[in-house]
């Protein structure tokens, strides 16, 4: 897996959300993406995922341009994602939620194969007992897990997680943390956005910090923790 972002710009009217960002990920890196509110984290993930078209710059995935592709084509290339506010298909069962990405991306394997695979994924997420329930009946944390399950179904090389720990029961947060670690050990690359500093500093091999659409720090968690620009972005300038 290789993701290369070159001088990426995203403007919304007069507001520049991403201001010429360049970033490179390779192998199975687990990158944490942090920054104050409005720094452009979700915009970056949405632009990589195809929900936003970049105003300028390039995104290459495994050497091929993906910046102008629709989200479904990007998913087909091997990039999976979850959303900041969970967007499971609420009036569909847990099993159906898992079948959607699988049958959309690999219909040739057939429904029976994917149902079997869905049971494995649900087992992994300890959610098999909920497979016949509608997604709307799940708690917020369970819906986060379900989204993770949707991503796992299609075995993407790069997984983008937008606030996977937000609003989740502390015990379930640990569970999600463990699942991410396990998948990472299995060879998946991650970009994880989080405001939960304890989790993201523990989880990440590398931290990228955004502020006002610019990367202000990029390195191992320990060096980022004491970076002056980062401290300033979070706490403000000293008088």
């Amino acid at each position, binding site marked *: 897996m290789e993701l290369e972002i070159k001088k990426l710009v995203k403007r919304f009217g007069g507001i520049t959300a991403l201001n010429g960002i360049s970033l490179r990920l390779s192998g199975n890196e687990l990158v944490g993406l942090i920054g104050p509110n409005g720094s452009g984290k979700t915009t970056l993930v949405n632009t990589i*995922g*195809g*929900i936003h078209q970049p105003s300028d710059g390039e995104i290459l995935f495994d050497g091929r341009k993906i910046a102008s592709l*629709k*989200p*479904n084509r990007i*998913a*087909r290339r091997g990039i999976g*994602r979850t*959303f900041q506010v969970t*967007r*499971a*298909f*609420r*009036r*569909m069962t847990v099993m*159906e939620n898992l*079948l*959607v*990405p699988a*049958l*959309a*991306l690999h*219909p040739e394997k057939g*429904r029976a194969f994917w149902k079997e695979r869905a049971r494995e994924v649900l087992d992994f*997420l*300890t*959610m*098999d*007992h*909920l*497979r*016949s*329930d*509608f997604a*709307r*009946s*799940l*708690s*917020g*944390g*369970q819906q986060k*897990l379900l989204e993770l399950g*949707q991503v796992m179904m*299609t075995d993407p090389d790069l997984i983008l997680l937008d606030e996977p720990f937000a609003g*989740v*029961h502390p*015990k*379930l947060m640990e*569970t999600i943390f463990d699942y991410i670690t396990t998948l990472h050990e299995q060879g998946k690359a991650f970009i994880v956005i989080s405001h939960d500093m304890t989790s993201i500093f523990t989880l990440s091999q590398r931290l990228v910090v955004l502020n006002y659409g610019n990367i202000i720090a990029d390195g191992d968690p320990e060096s980022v923790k004491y970076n002056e620009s980062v401290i300033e972005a979070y706490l403000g300038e000293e008088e």
Partner: protein
Amino acid sequence: MSTKPRLQLNLPALFSKRILQWGAALILLVVALFVPTFVETYRLHVIIIAYFYAILSSSWSLLAGYAGQFSFAHVAFMAIGAYTTGMLGKHFGWPPLVGIVFGVVMAGAVGIAIGALVLRFKPAYLALFTIAFSEILRLLIRGETQLTRGDHGLHLEPLLGADVISRVPYYYIMLAILVGTLLFMHWLVRSRIGLFLRAVREDEQAAAARGVDVVRYKVLAFAITSMIAGLAGAFYGHYVTIISPNMMVLTQMGLVMAMAIIGGVENLIAAALGGILIQVGLEELREFGAWRLVIFGALLMLILRFARNGLLTPLFRLMFGLGPRAELRKDTATVPEESAPVAEGVTADGA
């Protein structure tokens, strides 16, 4: 305090859901097959028209209820089917069956064109565009009198020829079209296409992020339902033998939508039964004059306010045990058992 055991008819526990559903459908079909033996000619005509509306309301429910696409042009596509076969017959002398096929194809082609044009935008655009399209088409048909005979109405050949006066064969043909289209739509919603359509209805962006080609499936649903409406319209034209632009006024579209909503817009059978019951009901209440429309309007408002799944869908849920299986539960339901047990009463199938 002792409690008396209550006698409960728990049909889902007695039979599997699938057997119950198909059994009920079979009973309805058998009753429908015998209708011509105990119904007089006029009422048989009313029921044929009711089946026509059932095709329209159920196909609209596929589009709106399953795919989440709110179109106001469904009766316009019905009219395209009717006028295509009518004009081919009048100007080129084509036989009704060939005309019907072309009517269906034309409705589908226009459906694809409109779908490709509008369905990549937000749903509100589809609603506005289809209202405008319906009105433009209606005015075009009114104006092009040399082609369509405008408000004078276009005469069509009877499907079975002028010699067949009995309505019974027409009854069975309309019933066959209704059953055929319902079976086809049922298959469609249970296929992966149906799965994707429901995902698109729930959240277009999320469906796209999961790999669903959103525009493609929306256009597909739009084209299929347009073709079904075109088929209904083409056959209707060759049954009533005269069609006019009045068949596609917005109030007709409102009627079809009301039938689907009152029956249950997210259930094909409920929407079809809504069409039949309302058409027959309006006819039976004809002696009340304009008051029947007032009652009908009030019923519609009450249903929109208090029974958003329509009247029949909750009934089906009660009879066949359809619907959601578990209530909102806490996060603790998924965390390891030693720290928090699974919520009480929640089992693998939510039973």
